[in-house]
């Protein structure tokens, strides 16, 4: 039997990882649906409208999954992390409550309007509600990132006599400098996800010679968004994210890169297995001096290694952190390559005939989910062993009276529940995809109608 701390960490990690599979898609799709709807408003081509409605339906099911899996996260701050909530509630609850007050009400109102209101209220209202859904989901992302940014880089607080901290500067928390690169990077990742899913499904339709005219629209919009977003992930957002990690969490950077000893002219390890006991990377393939340059724009700048820091401040799972980071960066690099190639073919007018490229796009669908998840693992494992970086350690934050048995029970419950929900989600997606966008145009006319 593990202790309550470990099980609580596992439960939060599991529920939040599972949860985020859905918002990364909905936040990306919300933007793309708005683009499709706007294109329709301009060119009045009914295909774009049907496409927007089709993706609206995919969005709706994914959104519901995101909502229902999101509620446990807010609650778990209290149920499993009561001591942390008591310690930092004055600050983190500000942004979490603001998400409720500003983003959730807006989302729920306009998602309802978008899904239920097209016929009754006309195209203008429908377009406007797609815009508001986009803004609502992205506002939601902002409040969550701001909360996380505070945990990564605490600002705007002061400490009370009883050891708890209170809010000192509201605007400093809302415009935490850490938040800007993190938000830009995270939302870019969501667009990459939405774009790959849209392009991949387009490729599936074109390859299978079904709903081909929609497939081409999906490919075009998906590839253009995908190439822009993939590059955005590397520069500027990825670059500035790692710079701020280097500046404020140098120990995390060292662990991410697998750098044990401080080095001038530090290299980037492309591949290699970290060996914590011997404090070395086994079988590394290294680009010499690259790390020093990437971080300090100087080929021989010193990068601090893990040994420069006391071991009690090391992230507590260095191999997982190291691999997550490398998976994120590696996949991100592939995404840029794939999308550049696809965009080139699109520009030359050969994309729809290049079956090998369509196969690649279709098979690439799962990978943005993996890359985004690995990215969050990097951020969150890099923050360890702290809940609030440098202020409050993770073991101090757990609820004192909740037993490991109780948490294990609920963790297993969540696992079972989420397994069933995942199966349902996949079943529904397969049905939507096999019905295709045209089925959407028909159901709108039939009295059976949309029940989503």
């Amino acid at each position: 039997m593990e202790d309550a701390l470990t099980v609580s960490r596992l439960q939060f990690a599991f529920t939040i990882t599972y949860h985020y599979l859905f918002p990364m898609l909905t936040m990306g799709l919300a933007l793309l649906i708005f683009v499709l709807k706007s294109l329709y408003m301009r060119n009045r081509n009914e295909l774009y409208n049907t496409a927007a409605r089709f993706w609206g339906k995919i969005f709706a099911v994914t959104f519901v999954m995101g909502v229902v899996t999101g509620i446990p996260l807010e609650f778990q701050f209290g149920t499993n992390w009561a001591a942390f909530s008591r310690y930092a509630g004055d600050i983190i609850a500000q942004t979490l409550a603001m998400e409720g007050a500003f983003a959730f009400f807006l989302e729920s109102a306009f998602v309802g309007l978008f899904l239920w209101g097209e016929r009754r209220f006309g195209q203008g209202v429908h377009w406007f509600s797609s815009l508001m859904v986009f803004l609502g989901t992205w506002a939601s992302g902002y409040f969550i990132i701001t909360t996380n940014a505070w945990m990564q880089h605490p600002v705007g607080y002061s400490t009370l006599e009883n050891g708890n901290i209170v809010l000192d500067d509201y605007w400093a928390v809302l415009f935490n400098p850490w938040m800007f690169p993190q938000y830009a990077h995270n939302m870019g990742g969501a667009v990459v996800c939405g774009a790959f899913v849209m392009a991949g499904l387009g490729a599936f339709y074109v390859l299978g010679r079904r709903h081909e005219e929609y497939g081409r629209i999906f490919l075009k919009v998906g590839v253009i968004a995908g190439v822009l977003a993939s590059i955005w992930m590397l520069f500027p957002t990825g670059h500035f994210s790692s710079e701020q990690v280097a500046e404020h969490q140098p120990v995390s950077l060292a662990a991410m890169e697998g750098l044990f000893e401080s080095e001038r002219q530090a290299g980037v390890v492309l591949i290699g297995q970290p060996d914590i006991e011997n404090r070395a990377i086994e079988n590394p393939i290294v680009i010499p001096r690259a790390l020093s340059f990437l971080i300090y724009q100087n080929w021989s700048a010193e990068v601090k290694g893990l040994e420069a820091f006391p071991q009690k401040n090391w992230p507590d799972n260095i191999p997982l952190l190291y691999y997550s980071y490398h998976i994120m960066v590696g996949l991100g690099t592939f995404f840029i390559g794939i999308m550049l190639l696809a965009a080139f073919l699109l520009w030359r007018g050969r994309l729809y005939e290049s079956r090998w490229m369509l196969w690649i796009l279709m098979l690439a669908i799962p990978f943005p989910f993996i890359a985004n998840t690995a990215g969050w693992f990097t951020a969150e494992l890099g923050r360890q062993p702290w809940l609030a970086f440098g202020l409050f350690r993770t073991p101090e934050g757990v609820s004192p009276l909740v037993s490991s048995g109780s948490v294990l029970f609920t963790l297993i419950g969540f696992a079972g529940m989420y397994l069933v929900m995942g199966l349902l989600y996949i079943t529904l997606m397969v049905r939507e995809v096999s019905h295709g966008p045209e089925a959407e145009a028909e159901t709108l006319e039939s009295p059976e109608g949309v029940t989503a």
Partner: protein
Amino acid sequence: METVWFVCVALMIVMYVLLDGFDLGAGAIHLFAARNDRERRTIIRAIGPVWDGNEVWLIAAGGTLFFAFPALYASGFSGFYLPLIMVLWFLMIRGLSIELRGHIKDPMWTSFWDVMFFIGSALLAIFFGAALGNVVRGVPLDRSGNFFQPLWTDFSPFSQTPGILDWYTILIGLLAFTTLVVHGSNFIAVKTEDEINARSRRISRLFTLAVAALTALATLATFWVSPWMLQGFSERPYGYVLPLVAIAGLIGMIFFNFRGDERKTFLSSSAYIIGMLSSTVFGVYPRVLPAVNPENSLTIQNAAASDYSQAVGLVWWSIGMVFAAIYFVVIYRLFRGKVRAEDEGY
């Protein structure tokens, strides 16, 4: 200012119960008020555009509670660990059943989700009532403000180590269930016609009698279990207005139901809920989580956020609530009127 936030959080909780209350109630009666798929679709359609927004009040109230009274959030949520997580599971099952039911046109698929929708809705109503019962009875907080309650112990509310369920909290759970059944059937009556309308009104009439009986019983039990609840009223006699609102609502529920005025019946059950909940929080004030040992009670003073936090929060909270109110008024106006299964949604 703590009092202001006490009122704000209480307002949000009342809003949640009023709004999600009717769709929980609709879920609890839909198996009985609607007999076939067409009628059940009508009920789903009546709550379809609004249930998710209604539930947002729970999340928003939870967030505001966390923000305004962090210590209460920490103690309460960890102390009620098991029932809270179960509430989450029921919320999930229920949300999924509303959304997924219509995706596959197969009688077994829809019946399965109909039953899930019923179970989720009914159990949530009971759980929420039991939770309120726990607050009023008091929980075994220790001196550092922590507690952990098992699901049940000896079923006595006078125990030093009470469980989540005892005869008192179960009684409040039943009161909540019957109240939301009435509230939900009143709403469905407003939104529908023909047989569903008639059946909903019949269910409402039947359960109103149960509500009246349970209200009397629960009130007496409350003053027996937690005599301090009367204190607030004798210190601030203007509080007696609140139970009067509840009584007026109860009378209205019976009177207008027999007169056949659907809208006024629904407004009456709303008034009843507002009156009952506000009387309860008025009696609990200034505590936010009473303890079995009164010295350990959490109050608005020892659970509140810092002054600066509360002041800043008041600004954005007010703005946020104005927006929320606008969305709700607009959405409810847009989707007003009766629904029929034959209509293409909206």
